[in-house]
């Protein structure tokens, strides 16, 4: 029965397709809890949930069903599910999104009615503040994290009490020549800068106004510069560098959070202490990140969910989180249990909390991170004075905040803030299908399907998959680009977000590539120029290198196969790994490249500080990644050229160069052309290399269109603008592909 088998196979394919579209509904007696915990913290949470299910839950007839979601997609999943009422009953998330969620509505529920004063007593004031927004309480704090001073006890027997002591100590333990540093931390990361910034008054005033150009904030930048001027801190710090130096005993002290502890080498005897006091007697006050327990406004069992929240923040639960979970529980009672008190590390982080500041939970805060990082980098590199950097930061972020506020104003003016239903979207494919099914077209399509029935049924599942996975997102992105969607108005009706061609006009009509302070690196045309230069330079170099190597490998010599395999290797390694390795090689202080430059008697190059050097780092990496493909393609092409053509040419007296010019090159054309087309498209959109190596440094100058679009979408949360950007990228590549096939067809016709 071969036919039956075939139909069964087809049915299985269809089922696979269909099952991807269906999601199971939840049962009435379940409390759904979402989190992104892993490892020990997950184990502790699951212990607690088991206990709850056996006691409180058992009595009230509720069972908690936890769902661990990968961290990377967690925020998106919540933003997509909660406003549509399809999320969990409660979830665990960082507190800094409270402001945005509270303003957009329908995402988190205020819990003032549930939370009794007795319960609130459990938490220190800063953590309660962290969970409040505009006078309302949105959930309870669960665990907290902040940085503190982690020191190598072999080098630093007593932690320093003041910043001056700390730097003096750090200087003593610095030996640049040997790569030893007294103090290491990621000082260009905004989160770590919090300690200085908050000591200077913080990023926002008490009434929520941006004040990153206040004298305190400028002072914080000056202080950072003074610290760096001691030479006791490594340049271009990354988290891997910081923990690496500490683990090799090459950093006496680091400023880092509890997340680093599990990575510390067991041979290092370390201690943890709160950050020291500044010269004026004020404490350094790092930012604290709080994990909160939030209720969904759409929960059908708010009472039961709240009971779980109370249980999870109880003294008993706090002890479990502290011991099994190795967390810092928000419930202060955890730190009076002897098990925890005997742990000096936990106690030190708890002590640090007293001077820490929760990260502002204002929606505006999300707009600050990336620009603040740029400002920090510019200050550190000296391309701007602290005053200039602060002034530009204030102006840029204030503008984004004004846009955001105007949007929110428009939102509150509208009555309808209901989540947009998804079903109208289905009208588009439905309309398309209806159009296709009119009149003669229907008959033709039906006849076609009838004729190629088996083929159609095999293609069907894949076609549906493509429709769902490729065309739908594409259409959605296109639609999005005609709106003014941002993170904060995502869930409002599409009609209220409609913006027509505004995004495109804004992108394409902005011709101000220069202003008084130089090139505006966020201008579309600058980025387009960089992208084209990036593509052409890479293409030229990969083709040249690939051609050269292919020509060399095309001649027999000893060890040829080995060389060939070695040359293909860069291609066989995942490109992000290669990119990260190259980033390490280009590190100004520790990278092998600068060490080599110094060995040759040169001065170390600050690879990521100038536009050209930084461009070059990306090009080197990408050529390294790209030449094996070209080499293989060209080698294949060379082998299709019959050797007697060269013999004939030799007989006619053609030199090697003439043979290459008149025979090799023209005969490689047909193999090379498709490879060039593909290479252009890949390079044009080579996100990984740019993002991981130069990260667009300096200040986004070396971003290509696709990384720029990513930053607009996921660092500035301007989804619609980013969509328009991506659409323009798509159109550019489409135009290129069409042009290229035209040209190819024309030259082929000419043959």
């Amino acid at each position, binding site marked *: 029965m071969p036919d039956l088998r075939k139909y069964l196979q087809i049915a299985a394919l269809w089922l696979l397709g269909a099952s991807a579209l269906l999601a199971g509904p939840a049962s009435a007696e379940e409390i759904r809890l979402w989190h992104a915990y892993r490892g020990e913290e997950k184990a502790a949470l699951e212990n607690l949930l088991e206990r709850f299910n056996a006691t409180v839950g058992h009595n009230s007839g509720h069972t908690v069903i936890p769902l661990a979601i990968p961290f990377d997609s967690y925020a998106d999943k919540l933003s997509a599910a909660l406003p549509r009422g399809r999320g969990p009953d409660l979830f665990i998330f960082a507190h800094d999104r409270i402001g945005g969620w509270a303003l957009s509505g329908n995402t988190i529920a205020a819990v003032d009615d549930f939370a009794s004063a007795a319960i609130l007593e459990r938490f220190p004031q800063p953590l309660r503040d962290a969970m409040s927004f505009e006078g309302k309480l949105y959930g309870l704090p669960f665990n907290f994290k902040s940085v503190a001073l982690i020191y190598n006890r072999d080098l630093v027997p007593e932690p320093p009490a003041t910043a001056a002591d700390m730097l003096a100590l750090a200087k003593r333990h610095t030996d640049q020549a040997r790569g030893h540093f007294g103090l290491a931390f990621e000082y260009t990361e905004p989160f770590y800068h919090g300690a200085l910034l908050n000591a200077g008054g913080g990023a926002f005033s008490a009434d929520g106004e941006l004040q990153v150009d206040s004298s305190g904030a400028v002072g914080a930048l000056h202080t950072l510069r003074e610290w760096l001027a001691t030479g006791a801190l490594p340049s271009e710090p990354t988290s891997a560098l910081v923990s690496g130096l500490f683990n090799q005993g090459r950093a006496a002290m680091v400023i880092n959070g509890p997340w680093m502890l599990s990575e510390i080498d067991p041979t290092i005897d370390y201690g943890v202490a709160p950050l020291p006091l500044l010269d004026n007697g004020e404490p350094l006050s790092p930012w604290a990140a709080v994990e909160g327990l939030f209720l969904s406004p759409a929960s059908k069992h708010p009472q039961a969910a709240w009971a779980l929240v109370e249980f999870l923040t109880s003294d008993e639960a706090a002890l479990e989180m502290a011991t099994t979970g190795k967390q810092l529980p928000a419930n202060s009672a955890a730190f009076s249990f002897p098990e925890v008190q005997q742990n000096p590390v936990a106690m030190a982080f708890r002590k640090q909390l007293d001077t820490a500041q929760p990260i502002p939970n204002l929606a505006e805060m999300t707009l600050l991170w990336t620009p603040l990082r740029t400002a920090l980098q510019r200050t550190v590199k000296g391309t701007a004075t602290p005053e200039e950097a602060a002034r530009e930061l204030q102006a840029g972020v204030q503008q984004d905040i004004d846009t955001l506020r105007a949007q929110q104003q428009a939102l509150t003016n509208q009555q309808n803030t209901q989540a947009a239903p998804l079903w109208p979207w289905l009208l588009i494919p439905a309309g398309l299908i209806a159009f296709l099914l009119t009149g003669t077209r229907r008959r033709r399509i039906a006849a076609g399907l009838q004729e190629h029935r088996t083929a159609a049924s095999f293609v069907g599942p894949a076609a549906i998959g493509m429709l769902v996975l490729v065309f739908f997102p594409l259409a959605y992105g296109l639609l999005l680009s005609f709106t003014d969607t941002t993170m904060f108005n995502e869930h409002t009706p599409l009609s209220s977000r409609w913006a027509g061609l505004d995004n495109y006009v804004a992108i394409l009509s902005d011709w101000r590539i220069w202003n008084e302070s130089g090139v505006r690196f966020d201008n579309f045309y600058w980025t387009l120029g960089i992208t084209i230069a990036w593509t052409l330079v890479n293409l030229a170099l990969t083709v040249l290198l690939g051609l050269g190597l292919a020509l060399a490998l095309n001649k027999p010599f000893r060890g040829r196969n080995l060389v060939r395999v070695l040359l293909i290797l860069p291609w066989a390694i995942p490109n992000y790994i290669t990119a990260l390795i190259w980033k390490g090689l280009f590190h100004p202080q520790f990278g092998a490249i600068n060490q080599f430059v110094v060995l040759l008697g040169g001065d170390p190059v600050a690879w990521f500080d100038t536009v050209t050097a930084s461009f070059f780092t990306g090009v080197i990496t990408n050529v390294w990644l790209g030449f094996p493909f070209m080499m293989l393609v060209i080698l294949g092409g060379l082998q299709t050229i019959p050797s007697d053509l060269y013999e004939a*040419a030799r007989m006619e*007296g053609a030199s090697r160069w003439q043979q290459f010019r008149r025979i090799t090159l023209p005969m490689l054309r047909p193999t090379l052309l498709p490879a060039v087309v593909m290479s252009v498209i890949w390079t044009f959109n080579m996100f990984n290399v740019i993002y991981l190596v130069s990260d667009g440094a300096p200040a986004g100058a070396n971003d290509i269109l696709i990384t720029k679009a990513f930053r607009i979408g996921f660092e500035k949360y301007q989804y619609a603008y980013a969509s328009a950007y991506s659409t323009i990228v798509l159109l550019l590549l489409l135009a290129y592909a069409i042009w290229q096939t035209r040209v190819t067809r024309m030259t082929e016709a000419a043959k």
Partner: protein
Amino acid sequence: MASISLKKIVKQYGQQAATIPGLDLEIRDGEFMVLVGPSGCGKSTTLRMIAGLESVSDGELRIGERLVNDVAAGERNIAMVFQSYALYPHMTVFENMAFGLRVRKTPDAKVREQVEATARALGLEPLLQRKPGELSGGQRQRVALGRALVRNPDVFLFDEPLSNLDAELRTQMRAEIARLHRTQGTTSVYVTHDQVEAMTLGDRIAIMNGGRLMQVGTPAELYSAPDNTFVAQFMGSPPMNIFSGQRDGTRLRTAFFEIELPTATAAALPTELQVGLRPECLSTTGTAATLNGRVEMIECLGHEGLAYLAAGDTQLRAKLAMEQLPQTGTDAVLRFNPADLYFFDTNGERIAATSVEPAGTALETAGA
């Protein structure tokens, strides 16, 4: 125009035994020399050494008076026609033919003039703007010839240029090559497998085997006076019958016949020898000697046919007129002239100056 001289030419590839252990060959100015021999005997290698595409391991290679062992192919002023034609597929016929002139930086007007003249001579004019992919096999061959001709070289080399063509085209192109050589008189070396090509084209033919030269001579010389069994069997179709014989006094005994030899001849022959007799020298009529054999098979070729005779383990082919062909399975008696016999020693070398006088007194005995 030039003569070519190969003196003790050796070709060695890597460590293996020499492919050509030492070749001496003189090709005269304006001569059409054909190299033949079985596959793998080193014909192409020899040709490619002359061309400069293969290095010469040892010996002296001269073109004209010039020693060219270390002269690059392009400097020898030689043109070569390849079996695969080796036309540049991305160039038009015109460009293909002009290639050699252009790499020598010939002025454009001159290139045009020369290419067009050659194209006219070969009837290629209408094809000048086509690419090789748009030509038939014969046309491609003609372009390859044209490309070789256009430069007016001192020497033409051909490596089995016609083997990719069908029989009819081959005959036609063969005639064309012969005509070109007649009109231009350029020294040519021509490698082929095909005896007919060799016979019809060659002023002289060099027969090679296992890297060694077996014999050089005009087609007639090679046919009538082969130096050894190899040449004897290589020329002529079907090849000469060779079978062993024993001389006992003046009597020569073979599996097929026994004859009386003239005393002078007998004196020159060893007791163990090989006897050759061409199939076309046998017939059923005439007064000459007879031989007996059992007819194993008959092949008809139209106006004539082949009879396969066996006597014991020994076989013999006879080319006979159709009406003379015996019946399969019968014992046949064929006649031959003892003067047509060739004698070779057991190593296959011709025993010189031995032929049997047409005495007419030869005795006949039945074969075993």
